[in-house]
C-alpha cells in the first residue's frame, strides 16, 4: 500500500487509473449486460448486412436507389452479387465522381471491411457472383501462364492489347491497362463484366481458365522481362515507328549537320 501511495503523484498515475476504470466498466458490462440483446444479432453475416445497409444509404443510394433498385442515375444492383461490389468499390470506380462515358479507376475511399459490408448487403438483394477466395485466383501450377496466354489472346487481347496495356473503344470509352491491377479484381471483372466489358461467366469460361488468365496477366505485368530494353508502352508499331523516326533519324540528321558545319567554308577546327 505504501508503495502505491508513494507513486500517486507520478505523471502516469492518471493514465493507470483511467485504464483500470475502463477495464472495470467493460468487465461489469460484460457480466451484467442482458443476454437476450447480445443474441439478437444472430451472425456476423447479418451484422455485416446491417452495417452495409447503413453505408449504402449514405454512399450509394442517391444513384442506385434506397433499396438498390436503381434509378435514372444508376443501374439496379439486384443480382449483381458481392463480386461486382468488391470490384467496383475496391478499385475506386464507385462511388462515381461524375457521369460520363467511362467511370475511371481512382483512389479507394472505403476500407476492405467496409467494402465487405457493402458487398454483403448488395449480395442480400439477390443472388449473383460471389467474391472469389484467394485459392480461386492464385495459381500454383507453372503451366497456367502459357495456357492463360492462349486464353488471353482469344478472349481479352482484342480490347486490352496483347500485353494488357489497354486500348481505346468507341466514344471516349476505353479498355483500361491491366498493369498493377489486383489478381482478385481481374478475376472479378471477368465474372461480372463491369461497365462495357462483357462478362465471362463460369458456364462459358470455367473457374480454372479464369485462374490461368490471371496468372498470365500477373506474369506479363510483374515478372516478364523485356529483352530489348524500352517497351515504348508495348503498343506495337505505332510507338516503335515514331521512336525510330524521331530519335533514330533525328540523331542521324544531327550528326550530319554537325559534320557539315565543320567543313570547308565553316570555321576550321
Amino acid at each position, binding site marked *: 500500500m505504501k508503495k502505491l501511495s508513494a507513486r500517486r503523484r507520478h505523471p502516469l498515475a492518471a493514465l493507470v487509473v483511467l485504464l483500470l476504470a475502463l477495464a472495470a466498466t467493460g468487465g461489469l458490462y460484460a457480466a451484467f449486460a442482458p443476454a437476450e440483446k447480445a443474441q439478437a444479432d444472430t451472425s456476423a453475416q447479418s451484422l455485416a448486412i446491417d452495417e452495409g445497409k447503413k453505408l449504402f444509404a449514405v454512399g450509394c443510394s442517391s444513384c442506385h436507389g434506397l433499396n438498390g433498385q436503381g434509378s435514372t442515375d444508376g443501374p439496379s444492383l439486384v443480382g449483381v452479387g458481392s463480386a461486382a461490389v468488391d470490384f467496383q468499390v475496391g478499385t475506386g470506380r464507385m462511388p462515381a465522381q461524375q457521369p460520363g462515358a467511362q467511370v475511371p479507376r481512382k483512389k479507394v475511399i472505403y476500407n476492405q471491411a467496409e467494402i465487405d459490408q457493402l458487398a454483403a448487403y448488395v449480395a442480400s438483394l439477390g443472388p449473383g457472383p460471389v467474391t472469389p477466395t484467394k485459392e480461386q485466383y492464385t495459381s500454383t501450377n507453372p503451366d497456367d501462364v502459357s495456357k492463360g496466354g492462349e486464353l488471353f489472346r482469344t*478472349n481479352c487481347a482484342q480490347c486490352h492489347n496483347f500485353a494488357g496495356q489497354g486500348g481505346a473503344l*468507341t466514344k471516349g470509352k476505353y479498355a483500361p491497362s491491366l498493369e498493377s491491377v489486383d489478381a482478385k479484381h481481374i478475376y472479378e471483372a471477368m465474372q461480372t463484366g463491369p461497365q462495357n466489358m*462483357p462478362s465471362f461467366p463460369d458456364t*462459358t469460361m470455367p473457374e480454372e481458365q479464369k485462374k490461368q488468365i490471371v496468372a498470365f496477366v500477373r506474369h506479363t505485368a510483374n515478372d516478364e522481362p523485356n529483352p530489348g530494353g524500352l517497351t515504348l508502352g508495348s503498343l506495337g508499331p505505332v510507338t516503335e515507328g515514331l521512336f525510330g523516326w524521331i530519335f533514330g533519324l533525328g540523331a542521324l540528321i544531327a550528326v550530319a549537320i554537325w559534320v557539315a558545319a565543320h567543313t570547308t*567554308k565553316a570555321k576550321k577546327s
Partner: protein
Amino acid sequence: MPEEKLPEAHDASQGHEVAPHSDPFADPGLPAHEPRRTDIDERAAKRAERQVSLMFVVSMLATIGFIASYVIFPIDKIVFIFPIGHVSALNFALGLTLGVALFCIGAGAVHWARTLMSDHELPAERHPIEADDEVRNDVIEQFKTGAAESGFGRRKMIRNTLIGSMALVPLSGVVLLRDLGPLPEKKLDHTGWQKATPANPIPLINMNTNEPMKAEDIVIGSLTFAKPEGLEESDEDFQQNIAKDALMLVRIAPEDIKDKNSAELGFGGILAYSKICTHVGCPISLYEQQTHHALCPCHQSTFDLADGARVIFGPAGHPLPQLKITIDEKGFLVATGDFDEPVGPSFWERS
C-alpha cells in the same frame, strides 16, 4: 599553335581577298584559304592519324566483341542494366558492340577527312546542259540520212505493220497479270457452316472449353467465341478455316433487339455474328455490352449488334453476317445453315 609555324602570307593561288566595298555586286570569290592545324603542325597531323587509327581499332575490337558475345551469352539470359531495366544480355551486347563498331568506322572516316585529307577549295563551274551547235547539227543530219535510207516514209506497209506490232507487244504484259490469279471462285462465298442443314445441324463449340454449349450457358452481357464442330486446331487448314468460320455469341435482352429479322435468326436473344470485319477482314470483337456496339480495332468500323450489326461508323460496307442458330433436342446450340451472305471483306465476285 606555335607562332613560327604560321604561314607568312596567304597563298595567292588558293583564293583571294574579299572584293573592295566600292562594288557590292562584284563576285566576292572564295574566302582566303586558312590552313588547318594539322596542315602546318606535323605533330598534330601525327596525333590525328593516331586518333583515326584508334577509332578503327576500336571498331575492330567491337566487331570481335560482337562475335564473342554471340558465342558467350545464352539466348535467355536476362540482366539488370540501369536505367533500362531487365533486358536480354544477348540483345544488349549485340546491339552495343555492333553500334560501336559501325559508329567508330564512320567517326574515324569523318575525322580523317576533316583533319588529314586535302582541304583545298575546288570550285566547279556550271556549264549549259545542251550540246554545242556543231554536235547538234551533225546528229540531226545523221537522223535525216537514216530516215531517207530506210525508206520508212515511202514503204507504208512496213511502217504500218511495225506500228501494229509495237502496239500489241504490251498485251503480253497484261496477259502475264493473269498469274496473279486464279480467281477465288466460290471459295469465299461459303464457310465451314455450309454443311449444316435443319436435318443435320452443326453444334457450336466454345473456343475456350472445346465443348458444345447450352443456351442457358450464355448470359446477358457475356461474350463467347465459337467454331463449328469438327474444326480442330490440329487440322492442317485450321487457320484458313477459322478465318471464315469464327463466331462471336452475345446475348441481348429480347426487348433490346431492334431488328426483328436478327432476333429470329438468333435463339432467345442469343445472336451469332461473324467475327470477321466486312471492311478488310480483321477479327472484330471489341464488344461493349451496354451499348451493344462492336468495334473493329483496325479502322474503327462500328457495328450495332442490337440492330442486325448495322454499320454505324467507319469504312465497312456491309453489316456483319449473322448465323441462324437454334437448339437441338438435348438443348445444345446448333447452326442450321451457312451465313446468308459471304463473310469478311467485299470482293469483285461477291454475289
